[in-house]
């Protein structure tokens, strides 16, 4: 019991420390004292004597980016947690039903037709929802199979189809203007997220989180074989539909503003499960804390370790792969 409490405490502490650090480091270093003074003046409304640059850097440059990392990291981790339970498989990520590929196709279409940032984000969001909607519609019509298997297989083939559409668009795109933008989007980035982007994405992600929080105990039954869950009184088809809709909403909202950032939704739920066990109600908050902390750490590294920005999708994989293997080797018990 105390082990669990310790896990939450450590995760929350790490998140807090990382957040302070993320505000402090960068091309224009800000001291922790300055951050504290600024925070104090904002909370109390009293004036401060800090240079104007400090306020600009903290509130306008780093603020949205830090918030974006927290929201996107928590959303991807929550969606991954829900899916790993529902698909009874610890190797599942939020992308399994094609939300990221659909979002990517939407964004690539937007770039290909030279649309503005907002339209590209809307297309990405809609593309993510549409891809999962299509997969779910086809998968639930393949009767006489295990419903989960039908969903996963449909997700894989539709994902491949959308992937080739993306490849075609990349092939046709203008190699000087559009192709770099497409590649940049596909690698993910939190660099250019504005407060307005966040004000749309964060409520959508929260909307997806609400049913997961309310159904947190019942979610556990989805981790049982379908027959067993139904015999225990769960309408698994309805519950699965709600979970898929919620997880898709969260992921699509995140991916639409950040591009594709892999590994968070796969690695973090797994690490959280090793710490507090599979009970969804205990798992979800920890996974969200860890997801937020992980992506914030990665993004902070992305903008500080090299003279140019490193794409977070590359770093999450570089950190994620050895970390995952280490976790797996360390794990005494099975999933």
């Amino acid at each position: 019991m105390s082990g669990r409490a310790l896990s939450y405490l450590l995760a929350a502490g790490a998140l807090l420390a990382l957040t302070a650090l993320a505000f402090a480091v960068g091309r224009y270093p800000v001291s922790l004292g300055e951050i504290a003074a600024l925070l104090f003046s904002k909370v109390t409304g009293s004036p401060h004597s800090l240079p104007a640059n400090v306020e600009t850097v903290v509130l306008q440059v780093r603020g949205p980016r830090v918030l974006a990392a927290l929201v996107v990291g928590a959303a991807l981790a929550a969606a991954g947690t829900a899916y790993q339970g529902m698909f009874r498989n610890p190797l599942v990520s939020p992308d399994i039903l094609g939300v990221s590929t659909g979002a990517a196709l939407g964004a690539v279409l937007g770039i290909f037709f030279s649309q503005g940032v907002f339209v590209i984000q809307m297309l990405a969001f809609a593309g993510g929802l549409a891809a999962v909607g299509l997969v779910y519609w086809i998968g639930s019509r393949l009767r006489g199979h295990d419903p989960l298997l039908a969903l996963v297989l449909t997700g894989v083939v539709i994902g491949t189809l959308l992937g080739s559409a993306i490849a075609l668009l990349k092939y046709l795109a203008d190699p000087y203007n559009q192709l770099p933008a497409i590649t940049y989007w596909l690698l993910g980035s939190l660099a250019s997220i504005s407060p307005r982007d966040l004000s749309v994405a964060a409520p959508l992600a929260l909307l997806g989180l609400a049913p997961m929080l309310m159904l947190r105990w019942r979610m556990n039954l989805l981790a049982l074989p379908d027959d067993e869950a139904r015999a225990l009184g769960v309408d698994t088809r309805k519950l699965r539909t709600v979970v898929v809709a919620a997880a898709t909403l969260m992921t699509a909202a995140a991916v639409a503003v950040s591009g594709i950032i892999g590994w968070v939704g796969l690695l973090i739920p797994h690490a959280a499960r090793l710490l507090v066990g599979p009970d969804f109600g205990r798992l979800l908050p920890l996974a969200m804390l860890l997801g937020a902390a992980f992506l914030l750490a990665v993004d902070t590294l992305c903008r500080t370790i090299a003279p140019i920005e490193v794409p977070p999708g590359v770093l999450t994989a570089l950190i994620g792969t050895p970390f995952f293997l280490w976790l797996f080797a360390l794990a005494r018990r099975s999933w």
Partner: protein
Amino acid sequence: MLKVESLAFGFPGRTVGRDVSFELAAGEVMCVLGPNGGGKTTLFRTVLGLLEKHSGSITLDGRPIESLSRAGIARLIGYVPQGHSGYFAYTVLDFVLMGRTAHLGIFSAPSAKDHGVALRALESLGMAHLAERPVTEISGGERQLALVARALAQEPRLLVLDEPTASLDFGNQVRVLERMAALGRTGISILFSSHDPDHAFLCAERALLLAEGRALEIGAPREVIRADTMQRLYGVSVQVVALAAGGHTCLPSLNGR
């Protein structure tokens, strides 16, 4: 409690069995015997409403099964499936608590009262000491008993057990049979399948012989379990021996000797 009339059952587009009729009164214990692939599991899944029946009727407590919700069925029937190991590492107690689902609101978690029901179910099977162990780390036999405990936590009126003794050692087999007989005496109806005709002799009031999806015979075990019916069911020759101490047993003869 349970009434099945001229039931045809199977998978979508493929009928596995037909013309099965039987009734199960409150507290009655019935054993379904039949060869592998004879349709026992499919019959059980249909009775539980997990597979749609093809024709005929299933009545639970006087109500047709199609009029009941999933939770409504779960409050009447507890299901003990054939065990497997692909679970996440829930503790045994959390696992058994899942049996309370049908008694809970859709957004609720189990209360202290539900914990009490789950713990009593574990105690009644002598498993209380395993409550905090992960269900992935106990033996196959213990996991089978955890499934029984989960079904008991449903507080059902009918318990359907699909080969509950299949993965158990001899001692645990006897314990599960004793437990089923005891539950029958408390008024819970029991429908279970087994590969061992002796299990029907030991604890069932009636046996249903299921071959190729049809009910060959239904009746008291010592009336329907005979050399000729066992030959038809399993294709091997057996002797049914009356024991001096009372009861019967089925003794196979190898190579017809």
